[in-house]
C-alpha cells in the first residue's frame, strides 16, 4: 500500500468522513488542538527557559524539569490526538500539502532531538544541577527545542494556506457535493 493509498483509506473511514462532512466538528477539533498547544507550550517554555537559566533560577533544574514531565506528556497526547483527527479527515488533500509535509519532517526532528539530548540533558538533571554553570549542551538542547516548536506552530498555520489540488482529489469533491445538498 502506497502512502497515497493509505491516506485515501484513512480519509474514507467512517470517523474521518464524519469530521470532514460536519460543518462545525473540524473547527471545534482545531480549536481543541490549539487550546492543547497552549498548555503544552507553557510546559515546554518553562522547561527550556529553566535550562537556559532565564527563569526560576532559584529552583533546581531537576525540580522544574521533573515536575513538568507529565504535563508535557499529557499535553502532547492531547494535541497529537486532535491533530491526527484533523489530518485523517483531509488526509488525501494533506498528502499534497507542502506545509503538512514540512510539519511531519519537523516532528521527526523533535524525535531526533529527544534521541540526542534525552540521556545527557532531560534525564540527567541532577548532574546539571551539580555543575557550577549550566552546561552548553543543556542550553543548546533548550534553544533547539524552542526553535523547533515555534517552527512547528508556524508551519502548522501554513497548512491552511495551500489550496487543495482539486484536479487530483476525489473524496473532496464528494464532500463538496454533500455540503451543497445541505
Amino acid at each position, binding site marked *: 500500500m502506497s502512502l497515497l493509498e493509505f491516506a485515501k483509506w484513512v480519509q474514507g473511514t467512517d470517523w474521518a468522513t464524519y469530521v470532514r462532512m460536519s460543518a462545525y466538528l473540524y*473547527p471545534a477539533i482545531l480549536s481543541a488542538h490549539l*487550546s492543547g498547544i*497552549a*498548555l503544552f507550550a507553557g*510546559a515546554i517554555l518553562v522547561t527550556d527557559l529553566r535550562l537556559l537559566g532565564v527563569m526560576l533560577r532559584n529552583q533546581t533544574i531537576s525540580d522544574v524539569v521533573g*515536575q*513538568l514531565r507529565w*504535563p508535557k506528556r499529557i499535553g502532547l497526547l492531547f494535541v497529537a490526538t486532535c491533530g491526527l483527527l484533523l489530518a485523517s479527515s483531509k488526509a488525501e488533500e494533506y498528502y499534497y500539502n507542502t506545509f503538512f509535509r514540512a510539519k511531519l519532517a519537523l516532528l521527526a526532528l523533535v524525535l531526533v532531538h529527544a534521541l540526542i539530548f534525552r540521556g545527557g540533558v532531560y534525564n540527567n538533571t541532577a548532574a546539571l544541577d551539580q555543575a557550577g554553570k549550566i552546561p552548553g549542551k543543556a542550553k543548546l538542547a533548550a534553544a533547539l527545542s524552542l526553535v523547533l516548536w515555534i517552527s512547528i506552530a508556524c508551519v502548522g498555520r501554513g497548512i491552511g494556506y495551500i489550496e487543495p489540488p482539486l484536479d487530483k482529489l476525489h473524496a473532496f469533491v464528494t464532500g463538496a457535493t454533500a455540503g451543497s445538498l445541505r
Partner: protein
Amino acid sequence: MLIAFENPLNESPLAFPILECMHIVGFAIAVGTIALVDFRLLGFGMLRQSAGDLAKAFAPWTLFGLVLVLLSGPMLFSSDPDMYYLNLSFQIKMVLLAIALIFHFTLRRKLLRGEMSASLGKPFACISLALWVGMIFGGIFIAFIVTPDH
C-alpha cells in the same frame, strides 16, 4: 466621509500569515504560562512551588506573550475590519478578551498575591481557563462561520 486608502498590510501576501504566526506564538506563551498557574491552583503540575511564586516568575513572559498578541491582533483586524466587526465569533471573542484581561489583572492577581481567600483558587482557575480557551475557540471559528454581507 469616505476614507479611501490602501492598508499597506494588504499589499504583501506574506504580511497576514507572518502576523498570524506572531499571534499564535504570542498566545501560546501567554495562555501557556497562565494555564500552568491555573493548573497549579487546581492541584496539578508544579506542586512544589506556590501558585503565587509561579505567577510571579512567569509574569514577564505572560506579559510578553500578551504584547505579541495585542500587537498582531489589531493589525490582523485592520486587513478586513468590516468582516471582523460583523463576525459573531469575533464579537464573542472580543467580549471574552475584555473579561479575561480585566479578570487577569484584577481579581486573579489579588488572589495570587494572597489578598483573597484561598478557597477561591479553584473557581478562579476554572474561570481563567474557560475564558482563555473560549477565546481560542472564538478566534478559530471566525474563519468557519458565515459573516453577514458587508
